[in-house]
């Protein structure tokens, strides 16, 4: 059964159609979120939020863009919301600790190890993820979609609603900034 037929069935609250849609897109959602949020628990939690949103907004999906593009857009928007919420919590973390209500982890562990990275690249990838975390949100999204999801410039442009040339310039700026951050990092280590 193709995507359009599955979507039509899922709109009518067909459980198995919705399950198939989730199962075919859960990896792309989770993988993107893992790259952006750099925390497995957060990525799973936000991935669930993404599919709750998909379930609730499916009736508004008109098929003007690809289903995957639409899901990527929701994923990026939910990731941005999550980061904003987490930053707000970090700002008020000292108040929580004063009142002894510090049950959840607000500050992420400093070194993120992506489980999909090859063994010989683990160390370099950890350093690179630290640098990615310092990019601007749209640069970070474009870089992750390109590197981890393997999307073309055209596909990234459709997700971010910008032209191919704008994607190219976004990725170029992201790479320049990453180089600068990595240079500072390695220079600090050698000195």
């Amino acid at each position, binding site marked *: 059964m193709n995507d359009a037929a599955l979507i039509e069935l899922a709109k009518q609250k067909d459980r198995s159609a919705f*399950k198939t849609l*989730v*199962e075919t897109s*859960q*990896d*792309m959602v*989770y*993988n993107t979120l*893992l790259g952006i949020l750099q925390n497995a628990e957060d*990525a*799973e939690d936000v*991935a*669930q939020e993404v*599919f*709750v949103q998909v*379930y609730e907004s499916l009736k508004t999906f008109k098929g003007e863009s690809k289903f995957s593009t639409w899901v990527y857009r929701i994923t990026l928007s939910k990731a941005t919301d999550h980061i904003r919420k987490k930053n707000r919590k970090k700002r008020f973390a000292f108040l929580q600790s004063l009142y002894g209500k510090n049950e959840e982890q607000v500050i992420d562990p400093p070194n993120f190890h*992506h*489980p*999909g*990275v*090859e063994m010989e*690249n683990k160390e*370099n*990838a950890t*350093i*690179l993820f630290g*640098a990615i975390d310092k990019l601007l949100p749209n640069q970070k999204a474009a870089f992750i979609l390109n*590197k*981890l*999801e393997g999307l073309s410039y055209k596909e990234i442009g459709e997700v971010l609603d910008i032209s191919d040339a704008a994607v190219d310039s976004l990725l170029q700026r992201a*790479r320049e900034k*990453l*180089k600068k951050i*990595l*240079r500072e990092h*390695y*220079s600090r280590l*050698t000195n």
Partner: protein
Amino acid sequence: MKDKQLNDKIERALASLDKTERCSPRPFFFTRLEARLQYQQDKWAKLTSFFTRPAIAFSCICMVIVLNLFVVFHELSPQNAISQENAEYTPADEYSLVATSLYDFDK
């Protein structure tokens, strides 16, 4: 030489994500998602059923009517009309707002 080594390190780091495998969430993701959807629907269902209880709905409607009547009668009361008139004139007199231009002061 040192600069070349540094550049090589940077390039290696940038290329470290090139052959990354796609990650999957933990098994039974859909089961957990279904539980979450169920919980959310239950939450809204509880809230809706609370507000649609006859006693609650009737009380809310009565409260809205009483508040509306109060506002209408308060606005229409003669005492309120007088106080509004005063409120309009007092500041104008106090701050000489009747003078509209510099020529009015010269008179």
